[in-house]
């Protein structure tokens, strides 16, 4: 075991703290495009991706990290992403959402984590694993040199250059759209710095920037410990549980980071006065467990959850994560339509 995995303690704690303060959940971000027409969290996700993209570009150029896209097994990415998207709507949160709410004491989130861990392990290692192997092998596409495709290597451009170009273009377009729509900047009553950091929920800009920066540091910390990838979540639940069940130490950078993430969210919630054990109706508990089950299968099939693909893979310009992320959004919308939009329409 590499002792540098323990640098993940600091990274995870900061990540969990920021998740809870920023209410950073991609299920809400994507679902509310169509359900509530509320884009606040989507903007936070966008900022986090852009900040990470710029940071990864600098670290790639200086040789601190090597861009490590998830392999492009398109069939498994599409199935896994879509299924994960369906699951997170039922679970009431994405991988990061249910993790920070576990730290807040929400029993619904705990049930989702249980389902995700159980079936995720069955899929990544257990009896469902042959299905994963079969679909991945049947649909794997690699480039001539054996590497996984990214927007950079497909265009024949160095990663750092492509990442800076894309981030630059997106920032300019975003600024132009914001200006045209005449959106007001975030305002609110004047509060002290202590209040705005520890007591009130963060605005989308602050949440996005902080989580993006944490992911940059995470990539460096993780690479130092021999794991060449930024933040993830699901794999941490699986290796931790495997260690607990088999007694064989399988703890790695991700599992250490994940445990610390839950702790960070707990501390943030405690300080803000938002920690409390609370449970929804029993029917909802069954639903969130089942949602977690589906998420676990999806993440193990598609090579990762929303953090691995959208927060960490998209800024690496990985084609796999862009495809998997898109199908995750489709799955989220598909389920949200039946669960929320149709019932809301049937009122009249």
């Amino acid at each position, binding site marked *: 075991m590499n002792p540098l995995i323990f640098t993940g303690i600091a990274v995870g704690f900061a990540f969990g703290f920021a998740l809870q303060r920023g*209410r950073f*959940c991609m*299920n*809400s971000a994507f*679902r*509310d495009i169509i*359900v*509530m*027409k*509320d884009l*606040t969290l989507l903007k936070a996700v966008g900022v986090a991706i852009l900040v990470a993209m710029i940071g990864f570009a600098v670290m790639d150029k200086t040789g601190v990290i090597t861009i490590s896209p998830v392999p492009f097994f398109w069939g498994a990415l599409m199935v896994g992403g879509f299924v994960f998207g369906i699951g997170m709507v039922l*679970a*009431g*949160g994405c991988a990061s*959402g249910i993790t920070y709410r576990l730290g*807040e004491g*929400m*029993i*619904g*989130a705990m049930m989702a984590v249980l389902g995700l861990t159980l079936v995720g392990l069955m899929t990544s290692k257990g009896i469902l694993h042959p299905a994963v192997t079969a679909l991945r092998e049947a649909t794997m596409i690699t480039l001539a040199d054996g590497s996984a495709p990214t927007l950079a290597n497909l265009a024949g451009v160095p990663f750092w250059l492509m990442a800076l170009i894309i981030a630059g273009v997106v920032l300019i377009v975003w600024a132009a759209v914001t200006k045209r729509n005449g959106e007001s900047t975030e305002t609110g009553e004047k509060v002290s710095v202590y209040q705005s950091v520890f007591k009130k*929920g963060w605005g989308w800009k602050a949440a996005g920037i902080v989580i993006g920066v944490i992911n940059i540091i995470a990539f460096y910390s993780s690479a130092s410990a021999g794991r060449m990838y930024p933040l993830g979540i699901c794999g941490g639940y699986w290796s931790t549980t495997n260690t607990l069940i088999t007694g064989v130490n399988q703890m790695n950078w991700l599992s250490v980071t994940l445990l610390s993430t839950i702790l960070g969210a707990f501390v943030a*919630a405690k300080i*803000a*006065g*938002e*920690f*409390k054990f*609370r*449970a*929804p*109706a029993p029917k*909802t508990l069954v639903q*969130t467990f089942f949602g977690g089950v589906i998420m676990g299968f999806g993440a193990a099939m598609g090579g990762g959850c929303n953090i691995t693909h959208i927060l960490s893979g998209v800024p690496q310009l990985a084609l796999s994560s862009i495809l998997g992320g898109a199908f995750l959004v489709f799955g989220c919308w598909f389920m949200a339509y039946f669960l*929320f939009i149709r*019932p*809301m329409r049937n*009122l*009249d």
Partner: protein
Amino acid sequence: MADEVKVDKTLDVKGEICPNPDVRTMTTLEKMEKGQILEVLVDYPLSVERIPRNVENRKHKVLKVEQISGPEHRILIEAKANRE
């Protein structure tokens, strides 16, 4: 609470998962008459921030958001039924 408005309906969504507090608040408001008061009891932090924002977007009026204890909040909303 002498100066309090009369509450016509109470919606207890404590412990509920995302986004049930929001959706149930919206669907309940749609079924209420113009001017009636809905009391929402909610302990999910994201919904405490999001409900006032989205309720105003739908032309209902937020009268009050108050903390009861810890994450528990009480939101008072005046329904403005948009339907003819």
